């Protein structure tokens, strides 16, 4: 086990071990945030962000251990779809959380949606006076 090839092998091994450990720690970080943060929005922040980086690191470790370019497209597909789908689910959960008031107003520094919702509510009341205004209308227009 001498020579430059073995040295490169060792470097790749150490690199992939570091990637695996940091990737696993990202999962742990997400869980810690999930347990410690006080409301839905901050929990969502902790739950969605570290996982993508963790998955990237773990997939990189898989690629490094395989040492095969043919694996790379599949790993990229897995990661890109994770990158595309995680924000979608987070957005839907966030919308539902805002709509059902699962957030603590005192913890928000800026509520950008509040103005939009208020404006839409005023418009809805002015524009269609014959129609009974409900909360559901307001939130759907606001979103």
């Amino acid at each position, binding site marked *: *086990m001498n020579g430059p090839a*073995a040295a490169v092998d*060792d470097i790749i*091994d*150490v690199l*992939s*071990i570091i*990637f*695996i*450990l940091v*990737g*696993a*720690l990202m*999962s*742990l970080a*997400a*869980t*810690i945030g*999930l*347990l410690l943060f006080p409301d*839905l929005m901050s*929990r*969502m922040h902790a*739950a*969605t962000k570290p*996982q993508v980086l*963790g*998955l990237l690191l*773990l*997939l990189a*470790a*898989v690629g*490094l*251990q*395989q040492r095969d370019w043919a*694996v790379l497209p*599949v*790993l990229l*597909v*897995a*990661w890109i*779809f*994770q990158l595309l*789908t*995680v924000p*979608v*689910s987070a957005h*839907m*959960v966030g*919308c*539902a*959380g805002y*709509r*059902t008031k*699962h957030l603590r107003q005192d913890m928000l520094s800026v509520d950008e949606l509040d103005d939009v919702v208020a404006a839409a509510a005023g418009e809805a009341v002015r524009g269609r006076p014959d129609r009974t205004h409900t*909360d*559901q209308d307001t939130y759907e227009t606001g979103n």
Partner: protein
Amino acid sequence: MLASLLTLLAMARVWNRAFWRTPQDAQLPDPVLLATKPDGTTALRTSKYVSNTASGRFQGKGTVPLMTLVLVIVTVILSLAAAGAIYRMAVGPSLLDRVLAADVLLAIVGAALATDMAVNRHLHSLALLVALSLIGFIGSVTVARFVLDRKG
């Protein structure tokens, strides 16, 4: 439910590989820790920083194969993470918290699958991982879409 069962399966598999092999198996060459060289012979897959003499399991002092050590550490980390996510799923004050915890648990399952593939150098669960990242969000999106306007 499915996610937690999958987690248990993955964890059981990793623990099985790491600890619960019988002593007879430990004396045999371990397919996990052996890499087949191009000329057909096998060699212990250890780094030069760790002794090359260990045959698969803890043998003597300070001769733990590096990859086994990594596997044990990652197993502990991911088990803790999965336990935390399951706890949040059990106590989560609202339905959306539980959905979020289920998402995290699914990601932990994905991490366990990827770790298994990286450490044991196979690609058996790659299709499962791709499918997981493709359709894993459908559940939480569905629940979030139909969540009702009430606490709980």
